[in-house]
């Protein structure tokens, strides 16, 4: 009991006819950095609102730090920090006023918990007299995280904290999360960015309100049942279609400038494929064997029937 912070069993939530969450069950251990990975509409935000007691589940039970989601919602609200997906601070208040306000309503002061947020807050402190609405995306996230942290929560719920934030700030943000985790805080974070999965201790891959798999990022990749080739060509548009017709190919997806070709077993020889593509008049063909990324795994899980 004591080493499990968040425990959820068979949560289901409907909005009218739409099934937003479908039989969700998982456990998050104390001090774990747990990621929910999935595209928009996967149900991540709904799940976070259930966990922060903002919404009630239709069926299923759950607890945060041993407090029941329904009965003990007041306790949960005391010990959790929540950062909604949409930037939700007071735009007409300055950085410092926002932080001060959230400290006050949680019955604490900036001074009291300054150590906890120091690393994050120091980066935006030079702008403390600027209105929150005038901050850049990265700075807004830092401020929002500072505000969510100011009362020293046991559990942090971060709903898509890095959406709309530049690559450098995203990296910085994850480093901050690592430090918070080291301070013993349990963190649940959701993100649509697959590449962020590897930064979590464990991830749940979500799609259409269901959790497809829960595992460590490494294990998710090791469980990938197929072999992968990355194929580049000058004509990526036709490449995708022609690769799908190649015998033995299981699936083809565009990954930026290259195509990821998945096939079962070792049937495909890169050399033969290369010949095939040259015949189809593709120039500067590059074929490399690659390891699967979380995104490859996600695509595979999404398409494989249960």
């Amino acid at each position: 009991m004591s080493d499990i912070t968040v425990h959820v069993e068979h949560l289901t939530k409907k909005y009218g006819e739409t099934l937003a969450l479908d039989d969700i069950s998982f456990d998050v251990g104390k001090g774990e950095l747990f990621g929910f990975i999935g595209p928009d509409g996967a149900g991540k935000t709904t799940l976070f609102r259930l966990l922060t007691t903002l919404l009630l589940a239709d069926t299923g039970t759950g607890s945060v730090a041993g407090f029941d989601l329904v009965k003990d919602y007041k306790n949960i609200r005391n010990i959790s920090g929540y950062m909604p997906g949409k930037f939700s601070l007071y735009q007409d208040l300055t950085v410092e006023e926002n932080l001060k306000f959230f400290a006050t309503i949680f019955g604490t002061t900036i001074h009291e918990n300054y150590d906890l947020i120091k690393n994050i807050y120091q980066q935006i402190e030079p702008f403390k007299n600027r209105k929150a609405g005038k901050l850049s995306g990265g700075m807004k996230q830092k401020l929002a995280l500072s505000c969510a942290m100011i009362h020293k929560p046991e559990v942090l719920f971060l709903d898509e904290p890095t959406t709309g934030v530049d690559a450098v700030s995203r990296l910085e943000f994850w480093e901050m999360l690592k430090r918070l985790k080291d301070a013993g805080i349990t963190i649940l974070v959701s993100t649509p960015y697959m590449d962020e999965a590897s930064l979590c201790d464990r991830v749940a891959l979500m799609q259409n309100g269901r959790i497809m798999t829960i595992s460590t990022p490494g294990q998710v990749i090791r469980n990938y049942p197929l072999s992968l080739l990355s194929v580049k060509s000058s004509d990526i548009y036709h490449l995708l279609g022609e690769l799908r017709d190649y015998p033995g190919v299981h699936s083809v997806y565009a990954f930026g400038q290259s195509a990821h070709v998945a096939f079962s077993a070792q049937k495909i020889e890169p050399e033969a494929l290369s010949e095939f593509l040259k015949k189809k008049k593709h120039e500067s063909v590059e074929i490399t064997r690659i390891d699967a990324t979380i995104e490859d795994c996600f695509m595979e899980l999404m398409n494989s029937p249960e």
Partner: protein
Amino acid sequence: MKRFRGFVIKEFYHIFRDYRTLLILFGMPAIQLMLFGYVLTNEIKDAKIAIYDPSNDVITRKITDKILSSGYFILERNLSTVDEIDPVFRQGEVKLALIYEPGFAQKLEKTGRARIQIIGDASDPNTANMLVNYATGIISNFLVSMNSEKVPYQITPEVRMMYNGELKGVYMFVPGLMAMLLMLISALMTSLSITKEKEMGTMELLLVSPMRPWQIIVGKVFPYVFLAFIDACIILALGNMFFGMPIIGSISLLLLESFLYICMALSLGILISSITNSQQVAMMISLVALMLPTILLSGFIFPVENMPVIMQVLCHFMPPKYYITIIKSIMLQGNGIEYVWRETLILMGFTAFFLGLSIKKFNIRLTS
């Protein structure tokens, strides 16, 4: 308590950083008061008249003098033929025409009967009616004074308008304006500020905090109690200074009743915000569902007694009506609580009802 203070301070930041809010809060009372006071007056003063007086004798001149010296009318034109009346009216300046019969004094002398025709420009029926009444009144007064020695029996009504001897419009619109503005500021502003938190997503954060919902609500509303109260004082002061609106009764009772009314309007604002999720809807509801009835059904502009029965029944559900009754009674008649306790109780009832309903409606969670 510290939480609450922090919350209220934050709310004041919001208000003072939004110049539009400030403008509505403090500009509107002054502007409305001036508008109603100077522009929308329905008192008659210096209405222009035209006179056709073919007989031009002692009596017609006397009557004309009486009418022109009353202060209600000034002579725009002396007509030379009856046919000029229509074009003169069409020009729009002249509101009333007086036509004496030829040989007016002689006829009066011989037959005891002479005729004056009064023609009003009824394209504005209210004004026309009033002008005709004034003119008729002046003429019959004149007749009475002329006959006073000859006629053996006479009944003279001595009219005295109590509490508003000069039938001043201010006496009516200052209370009405207070009812309207306090309702607007309290209900509209609170419902807007609460729905704004919902729209911005900050309500989510507040709900997840250890603040109890009622603390959030009271914290949001508190500054507006204060500001609306200041507004009430501004209107009273301006009304008194610029328009001579008297405050005969106890000022503290007046302020207490205003405070009660503000609380009522605030609880209504809370109710609106608890059933809506967007500022726009809240604004629509506040304006359409509150403002219009406040203006039309409270007896502010149109007397309740003249309305159809259904509307009269509806009027009983309009809290401003009771407030207007109360403050008129205090300001003009100098009455104490013993005369207005019933209305006060009704206002309290409204407040309790709205508050109870909104507490029941307020969600400790998100409704979406």
